[in-house]
């Protein structure tokens, strides 16, 4: 899948990259060999078909080549395979190539098989009716061949990965096996009819079975390894898909922000804000466990911080970054929602009236959730804030206290302002430690 280490790096040059050899589903007449070859060699399909047919009289070369490719070339859409093989980092850079598709597909292979079977049956019936056809050996062999073909055709079905593929492939295998067995019995009957000893026939049958078993035993490790490698490859492909997903997201959002920044390069405050927003988003993508919405208090808190950082500015219009440190996490409930709203108000206060750096610390304990919001401003005296001012008194402290929490503001010119909110909660915090023994601090 990956290019060899020494290979020159793929570039997004407009030249068509050669598609890998696959037998596509669309546009096939029989097994898709000609269509696949045409896509691989980038020549018209008709040309490939004519050449193949023209080669048939040459000692069956065309037919042999067709059957060889049918067996060895896997089914698949060459364009899709090429896209998957491309490194995800280049996913957005390279032009997609697709096959012209005409959608419908006649199951020629199955029809041909059916026709052969009908022919065989017709010949048998004709022989019963007394027609003198010397097909004593040809018929059973034909039946065996059809059975084998039916069993082999499951290869296609499995590779196509249809949801019901497994069931159908089992049916094909059983049908093929029955036909082949019937063919073998016919041959045996023919042989006995021509005077071969049944005991000898049985002996050779047992010998053949023993050989088959031996070959199976020898091949088993190889088969197991093949299956294991297939699993590994699937896992690798899943990882690659995830990486491509992230790469696509990052390309989009980062490129967009860079374009915006360039367009507004003469507004430093705006540029700083956009850079900060982009940094935050990247960090979230790179380092955070992505939670389901509504399951993480930390995720909700980060959303609040993002909103404040994006919408509020410091006293002189500069954007302010908030340093967030969290310990533990839990599922949000109405109490923590009130705590979050109070936290938001405290953050807005710190950003708008305080001085950076602004720090936010959230600690989720087994009995309480605590929040500290700190800035390095000159501080203010709570007593000086008039009772008519709703900011601190109502929206921060009132919100938390009504829910049974505590709120405390400490402020001094030397140390800035710190708002401490504490909300008691029931169980369910991820304050870890199942082996919690005793001892809270005095």
């Amino acid at each position, binding site marked *: 899948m990956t290019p060899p280490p020494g290979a020159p790096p793929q570039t997004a040059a407009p030249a068509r990259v050669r598609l890998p050899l696959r037998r596509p589903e669309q546009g096939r007449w029989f097994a898709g060999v000609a269509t696949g070859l045409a896509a691989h060699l980038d020549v018209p399909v008709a040309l490939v078909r004519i050449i193949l047919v023209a080669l048939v009289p040459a000692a069956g070369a065309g037919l042999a080549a067709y059957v060889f490719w049918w067996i060895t070339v896997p089914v698949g859409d060459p364009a899709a395979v090429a896209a998957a093989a491309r490194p995800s980092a280049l996913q957005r850079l390279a032009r997609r190539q697709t096959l012209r598709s005409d959608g419908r597909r006649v199951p020629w292979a199955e029809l041909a098989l059916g026709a052969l079977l009908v022919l065989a049956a017709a010949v048998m019936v004709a022989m019963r009716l007394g027609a003198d056809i010397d097909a004593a050996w040809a018929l059973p062999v034909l039946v065996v061949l059809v059975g084998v073909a039916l069993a082999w055709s499951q290869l296609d079905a499995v590779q196509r990965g249809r949801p019901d593929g497994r069931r159908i492939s089992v049916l094909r295998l059983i049908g093929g096996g029955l036909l082949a067995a019937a063919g073998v019995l016919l041959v045996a009957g023919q042989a006995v009819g021509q005077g071969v000893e049944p005991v000898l026939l049985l002996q050779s049958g047992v010998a053949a079975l023993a050989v088959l078993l031996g070959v199976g035993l020898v091949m088993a490790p190889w088969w197991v390894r093949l299956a294991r490698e297939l699993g590994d490859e699937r896992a690798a492909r899943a990882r690659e898909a995830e990486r491509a997903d992230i790469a696509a997201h990052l390309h989009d959002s980062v490129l967009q922000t860079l374009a915006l920044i360039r367009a507004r390069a003469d507004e430093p405050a705006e540029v700083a804000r956009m850079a900060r927003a982009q940094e935050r988003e990247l*960090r979230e993508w*790179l*380092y*955070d466990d992505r939670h389901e919405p509504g399951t993480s208090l930390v995720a909700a808190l980060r959303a609040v911080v993002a909103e404040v950082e994006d919408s509020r500015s410091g006293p002189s219009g500069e954007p302010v970054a908030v*340093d967030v*440190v*969290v*310990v*533990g996490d839990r599922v949000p409930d109405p109490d923590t929602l009130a705590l979050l709203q109070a936290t938001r108000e405290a953050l807005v206060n710190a950003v708008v009236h305080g001085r950076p*750096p602004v*720090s936010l*610390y959230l*600690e*989720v*304990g*087994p009995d309480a959730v605590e929040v*500290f919001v*700190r800035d390095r401003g000159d501080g203010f005296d709570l007593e000086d804030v008039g009772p008519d001012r709703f900011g601190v008194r109502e929206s921060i402290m009132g919100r938390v206290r009504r829910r049974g929490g505590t709120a405390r503001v400490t402020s001094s010119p030397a*140390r800035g302002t*710190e708002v401490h909110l504490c909300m008691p909660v029931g169980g369910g*915090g991820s*304050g*870890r*430690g199942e*082996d*919690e*023994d005793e*001892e*809270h*601090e*005095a």
Partner: protein
Amino acid sequence: MSEPVDVVLVDDHHMFRAGVKASLDARVRVVGEAADVDSAVQVVHDVRPPVVLLDVHLPGGDGGGGAEVVRRCVDVPGTRFLALSVSDAAEDVVAVIRVGARGYVTKNIDPQALSDAVLRVAGGDAVFSPRLAGFVLDAFGAAAGDVATGDDELDRLSAREREVMRLIARGYTYREVAGELFISVKTVETHVSAVLRKLQLSNRNELTRWAAARRLL
């Protein structure tokens, strides 16, 4: 003023090294630079600086990044490492601390604080950023009130250490922590170093599980 502290700067981004060099004040002197694991090990062995400012993510070597540099430099006595990272990921940070780095700061630290941190590490003390303090509280289950009763316990923080960690996580400087707890800055440094030792040596269940969950082991 005394002699400046010699520092080797290890980071794979040239721009970042230039920026750090320009921002460090006169108390610190950059005597060497390296951009990948192998050259970093080489430079540290050649120069034997008291402090190495080490990026957590580095190319080269066996792919172990900053932690690999620390491991391969254990034979250089007197050299201490301060991890420097843009990453928020606990696994990056804790991996470097566990192999022996004396502290961790984020790359958006202000220049004054970075010089302070270098001096502190040179003096044998530990440097904790708020985020690292948060990791520690998380990993030791301190938020759940799980604290040690004796001094010799490696697997839990003492009540005092927990208090110090909480203040650092809240954005307090060492000096502010000292003022808040009515202790000396030296005592704060002692507590932080003790926490660092626990972080490096403890095989506490939670820490192990926590590290395993983050694929650190």
